[in-house]
């Protein structure tokens, strides 16, 4: 609750500070301070203290799972601000609004991570999506950005329509939007509506998290959006929607038999296949990352496929690892003058720190041990193994993980093993230290994952 209200207030505060403060650095600092406050307040709530106590009529339910994810999302956003706030201020003139929108998105994130009613799920998803449409198109003069925004918008609202139809059918079948009620009456009456509704809901959520075959908008949108915002979209937002999906699956699907498992497995496999195979053929690192985010979504789908304690723990860990690494990579990518693989040639010589930290991030994304990314993938695979059915999916996933090595390492090859003089924007030493810090955290958590895992028992 703390996070939901405070993030909304902070969003408003930033909107207004945009009116009264014209200094960009000041705005940036306000945003960062707000983010710290938000994180602090959420951690306070994790320890049992609520600043705002609102009767939500059980539409929201704040459990450890959601709160922990919030903390991770906020921490990742804080990191993102620290790394990229300066680049955010360069996108256009409406600096305060960009930050404000991000805070509103975080409000949606907090909603999605704790919904207990389909109404809140819908609101959360929309509060996330609508600001994202704006952020995608925030580079107003850039045609690519415009088109990305339009495409994202049309796809997003279309999937919203489908989601609403699904919710309406579920409501028709069950007479309630509350997940508890739905789960309690899972096999009573009007099954046809209920399952049709669930299917539509699933499809729309698949749209939102870009699961194949509903992924086609993702690469174009991620590519067209200003790179700083792509970073945010691809990490925190995506993870948040997944968390929402996991909640949904956990409560509804897990109680409604196992018929859906094969379908989810097929979706997962398709996502992995499309994401990984297409990523190989990309010439631009940004597009490659877009496809890789689809591939990563495929791995996160494992949490849905195998609903058990492992998958819930794993998805949090995955969100953490994936967000850290991707935020880091994008922060570096924003600084690059040329987004193609050739643009990275010889980065190790011109910017050794950037190259080294990027390597760590890529290794983490590829799931190489000693990085948090490994444990993320480990949990996903382990949960699927534990659930016991459809083991072919696990093998398919590791094949795809191996494929992913191919394109992630292509960046490493460019940076270290190829001749060239990669050009970057000027990079401050603070930025470098921060990247080193992130890389250190990734490795540290990769070696001692217990530091996070101990919080993960639900």
């Amino acid at each position, binding site marked *: 609750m703390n996070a939901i209200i405070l993030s909304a207030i902070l969003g408003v505060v930033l909107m207004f500070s945009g009116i009264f403060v014209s200094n960009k650095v000041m705005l940036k600092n306000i945003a960062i301070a707000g983010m710290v406050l938000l994180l602090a307040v959420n951690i306070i709530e994790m320890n049992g203290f609520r600043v705002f106590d609102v009767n939500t009529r059980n539409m929201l339910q704040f459990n450890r799972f959601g709160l922990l994810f919030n903390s991770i999302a906020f921490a990742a956003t804080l990191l993102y601000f620290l790394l990229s706030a300066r680049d955010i201020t360069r996108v256009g003139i409406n600096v305060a609004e960009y930050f404000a929108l991000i805070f509103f998105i975080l409000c949606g994130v907090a909603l999605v991570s704790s919904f207990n009613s389909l109404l809140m799920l819908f609101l959360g998803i929309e509060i996330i999506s609508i600001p994202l449409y704006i952020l995608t198109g925030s580079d107003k003069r850039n045609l690519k950005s415009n088109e990305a925004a339009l495409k994202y918008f049309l796809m997003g609202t279309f999937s919203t329509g489908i989601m609403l139809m699904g919710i309406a059918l579920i409501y028709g079948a069950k007479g309630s939007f509350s997940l508890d009620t739905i789960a309690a009456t899972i096999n009573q009456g009007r099954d046809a509506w209920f399952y049709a509704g669930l299917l539509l809901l699933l499809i729309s959520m698949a749209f939102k998290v870009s699961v194949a075959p509903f992924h086609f908008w993702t690469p174009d949108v991620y590519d067209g959006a200003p790179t700083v915002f792509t970073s945010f979209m691809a990490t925190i937002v995506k993870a948040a929607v997944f968390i929402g999906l996991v909640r949904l699956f956990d409560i509804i699907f897990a109680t409604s038999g196992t018929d859906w498992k094969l379908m989810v497995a097929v979706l997962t496999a398709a996502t992995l296949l499309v994401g990984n195979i297409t990523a190989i053929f990309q010439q631009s690192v940004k597009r490659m990352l877009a496809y890789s985010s689809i591939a990563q979504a495929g791995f996160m789908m494992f949490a849905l496929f195998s609903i058990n304690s492992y998958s819930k723990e794993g998805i949090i860990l995955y969100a953490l690892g994936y967000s850290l690494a991707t935020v880091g990579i994008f922060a570096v990518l924003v600084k690059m003058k040329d987004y193609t693989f050739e643009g990275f040639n010889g980065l190790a010589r011109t910017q050794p720190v950037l190259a080294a930290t990027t390597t760590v991030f890529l290794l983490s994304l590829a799931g190489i*041990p000693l990085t948090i990314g490994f444990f993320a993938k480990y949990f996903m695979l382990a949960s699927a193994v534990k659930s016991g059915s459809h083991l072919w999916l696990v093998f398919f996933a590791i094949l795809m993980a191996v494929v992913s090595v*191919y394109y992630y390492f292509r960046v490493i090859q460019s940076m270290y093993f190829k001749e060239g003089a990669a050009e970057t924007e000027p990079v401050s030493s603070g930025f470098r230290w921060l990247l080193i810090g992130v890389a250190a955290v990734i490795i540290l958590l990769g070696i001692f994952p217990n530091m996070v895992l101990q919080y993960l028992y639900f």
Partner: protein
Amino acid sequence: MVPVLLILIPLITGAALFAIRQEAMAKSIALLASLVSLAVMLAGMSVWNDAAHLTYNQSWIGALNSRFHFALDGMSQLLCLLTTLSFPIIFYSTWNNQYPDHNRFLGLMLLSQAGLLGVFMSMDAMLFYFFWELALIPLYFLSSRWGGEKRIQVTIKFFVYTFLGSLFMLIGLIMLYFKAGGSFAWADFVKLNMAPREEMAIFLMLALAFAIKMPLFPFHTWQPDTYEQSPTPVTMILSAIMAKMGIFGLLRWLAPVVPAATYQWGDNFATLAVVGMLYASFIAMRQDDLKKLVAYSSIAHIGLMILAVFAPSYSGLQGVMIQMFNHGINILGMWIVVNVIEQKFGTRKISELGGLAQKAPVLTILLVIVALANIAMPLTNAFIGEFMMFNGVLGSTATNFGVAYAVAGIITIILGAVYTLKMIQKVFYGETNALTANATDISFNVQLSLAIIVVAILLIGLFPNPMLSLTSDLSEQILGRMNLK
């Protein structure tokens, strides 16, 4: 205590080396660190030879019930000794090699040493998997950064292959984890009694990883290219130590853990091993490149060890364990020679060389001894190992084709002798040519390195017993699990 030191010394030194720019200083530190770990290892085998010093068991990932559990049993001791012995020799024998960013080169080498040692000592599957990868990643960077012309494509192939294998292994380990009731401990794994289907699934997954690493025909295709393209010190690690990881895996994590499946699939893998041996030997005969020749000969030798594992008997397993050490030492000697030749003449083509014996007599003498050991002449260390392995294969009750395997093995030994001697003949005897006319003998560091190897070869060849006694426990245990005792 000893395990922790063994891991931390190379790890910390390796990391520190990234900060040390002076080349000479970096080389000295790397050599010193490797010598210190050798000293620790030797101490562990002598004065600290007790359970308290040789095991280390601390909680690591509580959530997964995984522990920092290292132990140095007999096989681990042998392999760690091989590792700690190889590294000083590698560093010292390649003292004069020049690489850009030499400090990083050495740092990565030491990191991979830490990984290798960790693999050999881990008694926890998660930990094992970790070090398995830690050993791999530095080698990938080493080969990609300092390798030959086609290094980028070749090393990514190498990495992808081994990564694929290790992921399969991971799945296998995860399955074992759940079977063992949420434990990664090796001690729990070897107590498991699983249904045949489950055992088979796990066996196949683990075996794939090890087969790629060893490498076993037909998973070997990455190996000759990688050996050829990597800088020679890296090749030394790859063939002398890393290839042993696979066999080590078979002996530690496969045969005792899924004995029934190992027994059941033994003939298939043994056949593959035999095919691989013959294939590699024939290919090696036609090689003109020194590195490739040694690489294929390595496949052949490794194949023999695989054969002995999959056609098990007490003698065979004992042979495999000491042969792991012996082959590591021998192949290291071969690579040192290759390195010297490459450094001196800038070529590895056998056809371009000749008459070195006149110019470099010391090198020739030492090489001949190493080469004889490599083809398992009596009195050398490899003879002991290979003899025991043949003996074991012939006497194995696990297979009906022991004789056929042994015959094939003998053929490869003979072929090995043919191509090794032919190589020696071409390179060291015959007429000198323009390239080798002005050759000089090897420098002191290479002489010393080769001399140490030769001493080790002869010593083990004459007194193998202490080594055999080290590994008898494990051999017994494996056979016990497979009901073959």
